[in-house]
Structures are given as C-alpha cells and as structure tokens.
C-alpha cells in the first residue's frame, strides 16, 4: 500500500477478501485515514451517514459497520452518542447527533433497558411499555432525521428460569425477550422500519459466540466485538438492499455444482442426483434452494463448460431434476472461458456484471472470474455440497426488504425477453418487429404503491441514467407532493408480457417557463424500441399542461453512462453551452416547435386507475 492514496475500488476489493477480526480493524483504520470524512469522488451509491443509537456499549460495532458497507461498495460514516446518552441526544436539537443528521439510524436496545425497571406490573404491561419505548424512539428519529430506520432485535442474554417450557412463566426476561422480538416484526412493518434480525443469526451461530457475559460485566457490551464483522455484514446487506443494490442473478455451474459428476463423461445414468444417495440428496437440496430463490425473484443463469446438448440433457430427461430448463433465464454451455460467458449472460439479460453471483465448485474457474471480473460476486464455496445453500444464504447477496409483485414475475419477464429476441431473429425488418411487439407504455405520476421500485431504479440504474442523482424514499415522497415537479413512472407492456416499471422521469419547474429534467433513467432491457421517443412525447405533453415552454436536459457523465451521452442530441435538443470541465452538458428543447415523434408504442395514462 502506498502512503499517498489508496483508490476506493482497491479498498472495496480488500474488504471483500478480508476475513477475521484484526484484518477488519486494520482495514477500518485505512478506510478512515483516506475516506474518513468525505466519500470518494464519483461514488455511484448514495453516501450513508449512520447513527448508532444503543442503550448498551455499541462503539465497538462501528468498525464492522463501516467495513461491511465497504464490501458492498458503500461509503458509510458513523456517529454514536456517549454511553447512555442516545435518548437525550435524540431529544435535544443542539446535540451532536442533530449536527450529524444521519440518513440512517440504527437502534439497539438491551433486555435490561427494555424491561429492567418494570418490576411489579404484569408481563403484558411490561411488553407494551417496551414496545412504546421503541416506537417512540423510531418516531423521534423519523421526525428529526427521516431516512432509513433500522432496529436491531434484542439479544436474548438473560437465561431461562424454568427451561423448555419457559412460555409458562410469561414474566421471565428470557421469555419477554422472545416476545418483544416477535412483536418487533409486526411493529417494524407497520412503521416502515427494517429489522436487523440478529436473533435469527444467533440461532445459527449460538448465543455464546454473540454474547459474552464477561464483556457485559466489564464493558456493557451486549454483543461481542468478535462478531462485529458479522454484525456489520448483516447491516450492510440491508442497507445495500434499501439502495436497490442487492445482487439480481445467480449464475450456476452444472457439473459438481447442481449434480455430482460430469454429464459429458458419466452420462445421464452416471451423474449423482436424487434420493437414496447422500451426495445425490445434497445436490437435490441445492437445487431446491435455488428453485425457491428463483420463485421469489432471483434470476437464474447457467454457465457451464460443456457441449450444449450434454448440458441440457439432465434438464430435459433426468427424472430427479428440480430445476427445469424454463427456470433458467439464460443458458450458456460451451468451451469458451467463463469470464467471456459471464459477460454474455449480463449482456443477454441486460443487467450489470455487478448484479451477478457466480457459483462454481472449481477453484480455477472462481479465480479466473475474480481476476477478470472483479465486480462479479464469487463465493468461496465450502467443500461439501450439503453446505452450499447455507453458505450462499449467509452471504446475503440477494437480501430483499420486501417482495414486490414484480419480483415474483421477474423470471417470467426474462423468459419473455428471450422470446422477443427469438422473434427479432425471425423478422428481418426492424419496423415490422417493433410493430409486432404491440407495445403499450402505461404511465402515471409516482404512486405510493410503486415507491419501492421507483427508489430501487433511482439508486440502481447506472447505464441509461442521464444525471445519476440518487434519492432516498423520503426525497421521492417530497417530490411527489411538490406541485412544481413532474414525476413520471413508465411501465411497458407488450405481447410477451409486462416488463414492469422501466422508466423514470423527474422534471422540476425552475421559473420563466423552463423545466429542468432532473432525472431521466430507463432500464436497459427496453432499449432500441422507441421508448425514448414515446417518453419524450409524454414529457412534452405533460410539461405543456404545467405551462412549460422549454425543457432543459442535462447529461452528467459517470464511468457507466456513456451510452446516453448523445441522448438529448438524438432527440432533437439543442446544446445550450460548451461542455464544462467535468464533461457535463446541457440541452434545450422549445416546446412551441416540437412535433411528436412517431413510435410503435401506444401511450396510456393510468393515473386514475387505482
């Protein structure tokens, strides 16, 4: 490491390969040295300012949070009040907490803080009092800072008093802890709070790894520093998910990953898969897990070194296969290197390489992909296939905060895309092809029901994104109530199905009859279908309704959005001024002269349909 500077991307890679407690502490020091107060320039994700508000000592968890975020490419700075001061700081507008003004607030309460002094009242009343205390803290954070609120579940540090049937002693602290954690689930959903469910993780790791009574007595640490890297990872998974930055696609090797043996050598009868054989059952369990992931919205792809016919054979003919060919959105089996094939998969599915998780039992292939494509997540698989599902789940790649209807449909959407491609090949004339798609662009102003998807697109879209401005849920909500703003969400339907919300435009009136196009982004999977032109037609007609005479478009270059450099020029905008030093360009379109473009898309207003 040079003394001068460490670039952000190398730090991210170091974090991803960092394992263990002291490695994490060291990396955190390097991180703070170079990026302690300011995020790196050109960071494509929204910087996170996280306040950790705990009843016990929590300072020792901050390094894990920062490094956990770094692993996911997120810059996170932290603040925590002095021990025992969280409530005072929440209340007091002059406090350092208010100066820090977090966009993410993480609450962590220990069992004694919630139940310690409530002796003499009924267990039910104690539970209610604890829930009120928690809810009040959320409301204060929401009122003062808005943003993302996270509640850590309570560590069950108090031992049971009667044992297996502890529920027959409802006032025991052990049982109250269990019940408040249960209540937190429904409360969090009602209040729009996300849970950091360490109680679930403690079930897997064992309480003694998470809670050390010696540290509680010495330093009031409710969670051991030894697990602070895990704690940070868990939090980072959900912060990344909130930014729409979870991974989208699981790319699977076949031989010795989905079944035992090599289909090309061992043949259909020779591969190990199915009941009656422990190894065969392990591969079945892996397939069952993968299938369940796909049913909740993770896209599946296959990347195998095989003759395609051999690779397809088990999918078509093996009676025990749980995964079917139709579950796989993109199936690539050939003899090219896997980095090339992963690029092809990302290309065919129209998603970023940084959305791929590559699972392969071969160390050689994993290392090759790591070297060639550092943005692809490549888990270091455990030796036994029995462990694969648990290991993949633990990495939190596909963390989701809500399952939207779109998630459940996703696999179908990508299947439909492949059908579109097939049709394209059979029709030689592009216009005929576009006409045959029978496209309909259904639009409306931002709607609360779709808020999550809108926020996801705003934070995740890199390529077709003119300005790459990232907004959180609160900022989007504020835009929705601003009469000077135009907020459009666009859904594209065609004969093969619903593509979901594929476009977002945000316009802001800035006076003198001008409207600034603050944000224009689209999902790359609908490119080349005249959606841009149809969208512009729509923006113009909506802007006219607001009395706008001129649109101002802006292009702000990033590492990833060069594909839209000429977007406004292609749509007939006039350059407004010479390019600035940072490469930013501005463009204008006079609405008086504008003639609507011919497209192959019917545009339909669905604003009043809900």
């Amino acid at each position: 490491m040079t003394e001068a500077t460490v670039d952000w991307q190398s730090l991210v890679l170091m974090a991803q390969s960092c394992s263990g407690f002291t490695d994490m502490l060291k990396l955190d020091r390097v991180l703070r040295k170079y990026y302690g107060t300011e995020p790196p320039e050109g960071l494509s994700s929204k910087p996170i300012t996280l306040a950790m508000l705990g009843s016990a000592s929590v300072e020792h968890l901050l390094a894990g949070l920062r490094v956990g975020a770094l692993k996911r490419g997120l810059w996170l700075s932290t603040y925590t009040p002095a021990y025992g001061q969280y409530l005072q700081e929440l209340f007091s507008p002059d406090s350092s907490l208010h100066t820090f003004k977090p966009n993410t607030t993480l609450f962590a309460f220990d069992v004694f803080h919630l139940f310690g002094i409530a002796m003499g009242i009924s267990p039910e009343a104690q539970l209610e009092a604890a829930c009120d205390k928690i809810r009040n803290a959320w409301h204060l954070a929401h009122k003062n800072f808005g943003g993302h609120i996270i509640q850590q579940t309570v560590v069950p540090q108090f031992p049971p008093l009667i044992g297996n049937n502890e529920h027959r002693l409802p006032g025991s602290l052990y049982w109250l802890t269990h019940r408040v954690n249960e209540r937190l689930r429904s409360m969090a959903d009602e209040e729009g709070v996300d849970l950091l469910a360490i109680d679930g993780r403690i079930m897997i790791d064992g309480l003694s790894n998470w809670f050390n009574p010696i540290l509680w007595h010495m330093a009031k640490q409710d969670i051991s520093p030894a697990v602070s890297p895990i704690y940070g990872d868990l939090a980072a998974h959900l912060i990344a998910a909130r930014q729409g930055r979870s991974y989208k696609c699981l790319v699977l090797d076949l031989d010795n990953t989905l079944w035992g043996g090599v289909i090309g050598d061992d043949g259909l009868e020779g591969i190990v898969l199915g009941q009656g054989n422990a190894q065969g059952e392990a591969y079945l369990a892996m397939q069952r897990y993968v299938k369940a992931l796909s049913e909740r919205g993770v896209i599946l792809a296959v990347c195998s070194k095989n003759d395609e016919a051999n690779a397809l054979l088990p999918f078509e003919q093996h009676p025990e296969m749980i995964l079917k060919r139709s579950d796989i959105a993109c199936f690539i089996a050939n003899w090219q290197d896997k980095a090339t094939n992963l690029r092809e998969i990302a290309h065919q599915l129209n998603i970023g390489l940084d959305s791929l998780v590559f699972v392969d039992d071969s160390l050689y292939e994993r290392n090759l992909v790591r070297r060639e494509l550092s943005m692809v997540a490549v888990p270091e698989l455990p030796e036994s296939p029995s462990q694969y599902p648990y290991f993949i789940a633990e990495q939190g790649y596909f963390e989701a905060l809500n399952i939207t209807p779109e998630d459940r449909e996703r696999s179908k959407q990508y299947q439909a895309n492949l059908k579109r491609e097939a049709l394209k090949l059979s029709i030689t004339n592009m216009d005929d092809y576009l006409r045959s798609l029978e496209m309909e662009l259904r639009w409306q102003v931002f709607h609360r029901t779709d808020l999550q998807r809108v926020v996801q697109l705003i934070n995740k879209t890199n390529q077709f994104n003119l300005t790459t401005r990232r907004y959180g849920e609160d900022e989007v909500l504020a835009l929705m109530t601003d009469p000077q703003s135009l907020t459009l969400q666009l859904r594209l339907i065609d004969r093969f199905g619903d593509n979901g919300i594929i476009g977002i435009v945000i316009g802001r009136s800035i006076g003198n009859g001008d409207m600034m196009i603050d944000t224009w982004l689209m999902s790359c999977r609908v490119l080349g279908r005249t959606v841009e032109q149809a969208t512009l037609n729509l923006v113009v007609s909506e802007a006219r309704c607001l009395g706008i005479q001129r649109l101002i478009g802006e292009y702000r270059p990033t590492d990833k959005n060069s594909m839209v450099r000429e977007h406004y020029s292609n749509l007939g905008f006039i350059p407004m001024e010479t390019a600035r030093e940072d490469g930013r360009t501005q463009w204008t379109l006079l609405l008086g002269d504008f003639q609507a473009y011919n497209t192959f898309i019917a545009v339909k207003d669905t604003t009043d349909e809900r």
Partner: protein
Amino acid sequence: MNDDEVLKELTEIFHQIFDDDTIVLSRQTTAHDIAEWDSFNHINIIIAIEIRFKIKFQIAEIESLRNIGDAIDLIQKKYKAS
C-alpha cells in the same frame, strides 16, 4: 509455544489493530507505552488474542494483566491447557 513465538503473534495483532507496523513490543511494554491503547482498544486486544490462540480469559485473569510479559505468561499457560 515459547516466549518469542507468542511475542511475534502479539506484535502482529498490535500491528493490525493499530495499523502501525512500527510498534515494537517487549515483556515490559504497558498500555502507557502506546498512545492509542485505551480501554476500548484493550478489549479489542483481548478478543484478538482469544481468537488467535483459541483460548478464553476469565475476568480475574484479564484484570491481573500488568504488561505484555504477563500476557505472554497467561497465554502460554492457557494455550498449553487447551
């Protein structure tokens, strides 16, 4: 594990925790000799030792440590027993 081997492991732990490869430890080193060795980092050091040597300390043991020499002796005793 002899004194030198334990000292070498401890030095590595200190280098990582403080991100400072210039730290030199001896049996006489105490918390006063290293600027950032406060109570917060003290616990991190204890935890790092527990993880590195796969041992667990008791409260009385932690409280009895006066310098690196004490730590080396305690680690050797517990490491042997484990």
